């Protein structure tokens, strides 16, 4: 079989759409002005940012003033959590989050807990990785000043019941933030329908450039900006605007959200064939995450008796890029906190494999993956002391 280059790690990052690159290019060379300058060059940059802001606001069903451009998704999460937590410090110091958040959220909460005297409730999830909205309600105290629960999980693709949680938060008048970084381009981002006060996005997850993000902040919700300096972004995020990046983000979001339905139909068909194929071609293999309520592009598994890094190296030798939450692939040498929170034992979490599809993937890519993966697994299993003990 001919070796093939297959990228199936779109949850990590995506290639930039050529139309996005084209929209960005003028702002590196001719349109390089600082948007704060009074002369024409500066005002042209200002105009580009204003237009980008209006486009993003339209997609999110909010006003342009409610859009803050940031330097990445992690920064959006930090701005939301630190900003709300510190602004409301006199009111209370309790934060509610889930046990499956991205580190951009969980490590931020942990730091507030360890170094700034906040109390954080990490809500459990069911075996599919879903938060129960009634758990959110039960965790609320008089001291709660922020609820932050992700829209869709980056490791297992599970979609959280955000609108319901938002309703509860609103009834208790507590600001509600969602990390929608994996949902960008895939799910509905209407902040009214979802009952959101804050929402984070990152351009590089939806065919935009790396290093630019968005935080939606509802009018009337106040925060204390962690990054101070100039009056950029209405005093909420200091720093000369990344004009090209902002234009790129807005262009990418418009393209992705505009073609969401048709893109999702294609991705879901590929994803379901991939899931079906992986589960039927190998024994002792499980789907992780919710079987239905999952991102259109996300297929994640545990493959027993093997270790994830070996899988990734084996796939890489065959030209295929994928990802894993195994202990050996993580910098901390601990298995993914997401898989553990879902009740998956550490030794099973070891064999986790995440395949996330994108626009460039075809049926042939899925066929190729299904052709090479069983051989890689079989080879690793034949070397594994766990395999024979089990069989």
């Amino acid at each position: 079989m001919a070796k093939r280059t297959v990228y199936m790690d779109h949850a990590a990052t995506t290639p930039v759409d050529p139309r996005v690159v084209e929209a960005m290019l003028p702002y590196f060379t001719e349109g390089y002005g600082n948007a704060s300058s009074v002369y024409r060059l500066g005002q042209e940059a200002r105009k580009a940012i204003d237009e980008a802001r209006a486009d993003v606001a339209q997609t999110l069903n909010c006003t342009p003033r409610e859009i803050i451009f940031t330097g990445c998704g992690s920064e959006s999460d930090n701005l939301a959590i630190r900003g709300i937590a510190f602004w409301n410090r006199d009111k209370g110091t309790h934060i509610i989050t889930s046990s499956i958040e991205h580190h951009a959220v969980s490590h931020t909460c942990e730091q507030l807990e360890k170094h700034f005297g906040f109390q954080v409730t990490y809500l459990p999830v069911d075996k599919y990785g879903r938060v129960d909205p009634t758990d959110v309600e039960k965790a609320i105290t008089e001291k709660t000043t922020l609820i932050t629960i992700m829209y869709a999980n980056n490791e297992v693709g599970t979609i959280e019941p955000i609108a319901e949680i938002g309703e509860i938060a609103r009834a208790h008048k507590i600001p509600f933030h969602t990390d929608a970084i994996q949902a960008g381009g895939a799910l509905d981002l209407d902040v009214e329908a979802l009952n959101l006060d804050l929402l984070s996005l990152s351009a590089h997850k939806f065919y935009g450039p790396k290093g630019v993000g968005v935080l939606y902040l509802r009018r009337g919700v106040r925060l204390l900006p962690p990054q101070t300096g100039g009056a950029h972004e209405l005093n909420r995020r200091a720093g000369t605007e990344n004009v090209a990046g902002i234009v790129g983000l807005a262009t990418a979001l418009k393209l992705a959200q505009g073609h969401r339905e048709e893109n999702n139909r294609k991705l879901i068909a590929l994803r379901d064939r991939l899931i079906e194929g992986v589960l039927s071609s190998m024994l002792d293999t499980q789907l992780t995450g919710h079987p239905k309520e999952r991102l259109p592009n996300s297929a994640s598994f545990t493959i027993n008796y093997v270790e994830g890094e070996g899988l990734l190296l084996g796939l890489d030798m065959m030209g295929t890029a994928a990802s894993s939450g195994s202990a050996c692939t993580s910098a901390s040498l601990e298995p993914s906190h997401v898989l553990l929170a879902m009740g998956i034992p550490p030794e099973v979490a070891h064999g986790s494999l995440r395949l996330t599809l994108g626009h460039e993937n075809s049926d042939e890519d899925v066929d190729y993956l299904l052709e090479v993966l069983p051989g890689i697994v079989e080879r690793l299993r034949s070397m594994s002391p766990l395999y024979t003990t089990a069989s």
Partner: protein
Amino acid sequence: MYSEKVMNHFMNPHNVGVIEDPDGVGKEGNPICGDLMEIFIKVKDDRIVDIKFRTFGCGAAIATSSMATEMVKGKTIEEAMEITNKAVAEALDGLPPIKMHCSNLAADAIHAAIEDYLEKKRAKQPA
């Protein structure tokens, strides 16, 4: 992240398998990430004449198993006892710092297999 040698040993590991009637068996678990290794040895005139391994672990763990077993094959028990994780890592043109602990597994399992062999030998000898 890995050297070419590590990748070669990972893709084509030497001495994979079990020995049905071994003279010594060593099993080690990696307390850091939870991985497992088994080493089987066959000894003749105090020399390791055959050695096999099975490993559940990362690419570095598999490559070091392959390299370590290769290094002690044909060696005397005494020589084999001297193998260190550092020597194995060096023979593989180095490992990323975070993967150094993986190489302990192979050296430790070999030492354990030899000790098992010596233990059994002592038990067989009349008191």
